[in-house]
């Protein structure tokens, strides 16, 4: 028949690597969340360059790195662990997958705990000043993303332990890991803004 077309040959079936629709959806979730943080940090910088009473922006001087710097390292380490888990399942290792996810989840929880202590130690509340409002709101937004990420890693850990994934079909891992790496990358931007720019001269 003149309408016949050539047989395509074999095609993979299902949610496989970056051909899964969910992967692409997560890419754009990352874009929209990145935009959200961009607007948050824009708000910080917009307010930072306005005139302030001395010593109020940042409130009580530049924030201490004592907890924040180690915490940044912890979060980066959790990303490494999750990345290690991803590479593991690509090679077919269930053990690496489960172990990497477990370590990543744990480090994520540690990050949250440390940040809770950092919050508790602050000498100001959210309503103390504009800076204080920005600090708790922006780090709070980030913390919320970490909480969601930790819950997601926990779910991935459960599914991995149940043996759902293998070296071909592990789209969920790929998608979740993307989100987690994003959360960590965005922390670098938040960390830079709050903890480093005052030391680089953006303080009054």
């Amino acid at each position, binding site marked *: *028949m003149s*309408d*016949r*077309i050539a*047989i*395509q*040959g*074999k*095609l*993979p*079936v*299902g*949610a*496989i690597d970056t*051909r899964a*629709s*969910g992967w*692409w*959806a997560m890419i*754009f*979730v990352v*874009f*929209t*969340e990145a*935009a*959200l943080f*961009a*607007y*948050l940090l*824009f*708000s910080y910088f*917009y*307010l930072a360059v*306005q005139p*302030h009473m001395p010593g*109020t*922006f940042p409130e009580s001087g530049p924030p201490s790195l004592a907890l924040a710097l180690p915490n940044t390292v912890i979060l980066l380490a959790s990303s490494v662990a999750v990345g290690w888990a991803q590479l593991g399942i690509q090679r077919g290792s269930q053990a690496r997958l489960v172990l990497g996810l477990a370590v990543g989840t744990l480090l994520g929880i540690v990050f949250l705990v440390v940040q809770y202590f950092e919050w508790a130690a602050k000498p100001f509340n*959210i*309503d103390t*000043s*504009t*800076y*204080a*409002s*920005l600090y708790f*709101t922006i780090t709070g937004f980030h913390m919320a993303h970490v909480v969601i990420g930790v*819950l997601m890693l926990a*779910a991935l850990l459960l*599914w991995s332990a149940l*043996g*759902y*994934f*293998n*070296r*071909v*079909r592990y*789209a*969920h891992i790929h998608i979740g890991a993307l989100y987690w790496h994003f959360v960590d990358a965005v922390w670098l931007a938040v960390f830079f803004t709050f903890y480093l720019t005052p030391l680089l001269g953006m303080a009054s």
Partner: protein
Amino acid sequence: MTIADYERAPSVATRDEAGLADELQEIWKAEPGIGGWLSTVDHKQIGIRYIVTAFAFLIAGGVEALIFRLQLARPNEHLLTPEQYNQLFTVHGMTMIFLYAGPVLSGFSNYLWPLLLGARDMALPRLNALSYWLYLCAGVFLYVAFAMGFGPNDGWFNYVPYAARAYNGGPNIDFYSLGMILLGISTTVGSINFVVTFLRMRAPGMSINRVPILIWGTLTASAANIFAIPAASLAFFLLWMDRNFATHFFDTQSGGQALLWQHLFWMFGHPWVYAIVLPAMGMVSDGLPVFCRRPLVGYTAVALATVATMVLGFGVWVHHMFATGLPSISLSFFSAASIIIAVPSAVGVFAWLATIATGKPVFTAPFLFFASFIVLFTIGGVSGYMTGSLPVDLQLTDTYFVVAHIHYVLIGINVFPVVGAVYFWFPKFTGRMLDEKLGRWNFWTMFVGFNLGFFPMHISGLLGMPRRVYTYAEGMGWDWLNMITTIGSFVFAVGVLLFIVNVVVSYRRGRIAGDNPWDAPTLEWATSSPPPPYNFVVIPTVASRHPLWEDRLEEPEGEKSHVGAGLVLDHGREAIGTTALDAQPDIILKMPGDSYAPLLLALSATAIFVGLLTHLWWLAGMAAVCTGAAVLVWLWPETALGETAETADV
């Protein structure tokens, strides 16, 4: 296991192959009854719901306007108190811009995209259902406020400090803020769905230079929304924080900035107003050529102009802030950008004119709407150009001149194309034609009423009538103009009524349409009216922009599109995934069946916001847990979706 264990060679057949259509019907049909209605993920049903809901909001917003037009018909009128007027005009704007203009285009796009692209469904069908339910919930949330007498009352752009707790003590603005955040989630997930669908779900051979312009329009708007909506959601969230937790983002007594609100809001707001017209322009670009019996002139130019308009649209937001006292040098940049953005619009106007001029016009009702749109677009465009010039804008802004501009662009570039699109695609949606004669009455009443109502606003604006005034004095030179505007708005309302009547009557008694009553070229006309749940029996392959006209246009020799034969995908609900640029098949995707998860997720998300609004933190917390549970159930890896190591589904 290797990838070979998960591969299969899909078979090929013609669309009349015995039993194939019935088999697919079994696989794809909706559950019966109310359960099916609540759990469907069929993009066609979701699209219709969006359109119907949006029109319900259009009518509500219209009635609100008619009421305050009565108040404004004469000077010193006393039909409304200032507070009533302020809520009416605010809710009118909010309704039209957020609850009608965006969602109606989402609805058309939802219905049409898979059909235009030769696909079985959107890329993420459950996410699609979620976006509709969230929209409905957000709309109800916002209207509950109005019904309780707590409607937002600070204009649709809600400037601080008037929106702050100190000046607006009731829950009005809290309702608005939280409702908008909820609505923003709906729009965002919907936008993500469109972008992913564009990248992954096109029929084999439908390279990006062969997709209909509606695809370009919605794609552009969706990509823009992904980047723009967080600005508004954030602005409303920070406002809610200022109002409820005494934070100091916008509080000018303590280091906050009133203009931060304006920047954040307009960084969203300006891209948004392009997002609510570009898909409609795309519908005209696809529909008008059918009634000119030729393909669109300058397809590439129009597609690029669509994208260019949106990109430039991110660079003009400060033109809403020309009077705020920002430094002249930055204002002049935005003024220049706001004038230059007219260039890609001009591309569209001349493309449409050229299509008519070099084609053979056919005077159907849709043609009337699509053709008149060109003039209305131009009027709205030039009034925008005038306001783009900074020194002139300082006189024009915040007068009825701007009200004229926004209504010419919104009604002219959204409503008229939408009504034309209903006339054009109603046969596809329902299998019946809308009445042509009533269509002409509908058109002329709407056209005359609209111009009678809104053209005089240019003049009252130039004579200095300010916006958002609940009354005005005699002797200002505005009396007759306002009276004419009020009369015109009622005539326009009659036109809309005629449209509704035509839809309601023709749904039951319109002439049977058949597959392709307009003899149009694109893929949606290659399947039945209405289409079966699986859209196409076999997946088409595409070799041009106008598959159904190929045999009549003298095209250079080459590949032809194949609509009558193609890939058979019948191992459960399946669709073909293709590459982003050239649409080469690269995977067989497993599509989800009906699910209650999207509805449950929307309801529990709404409950979170109700808890936040009422400060019932336990409610918000519990609802958050429910939301998390719904997400977990939704995302639980399923073999039927090809997400696990099992091979049963291959």
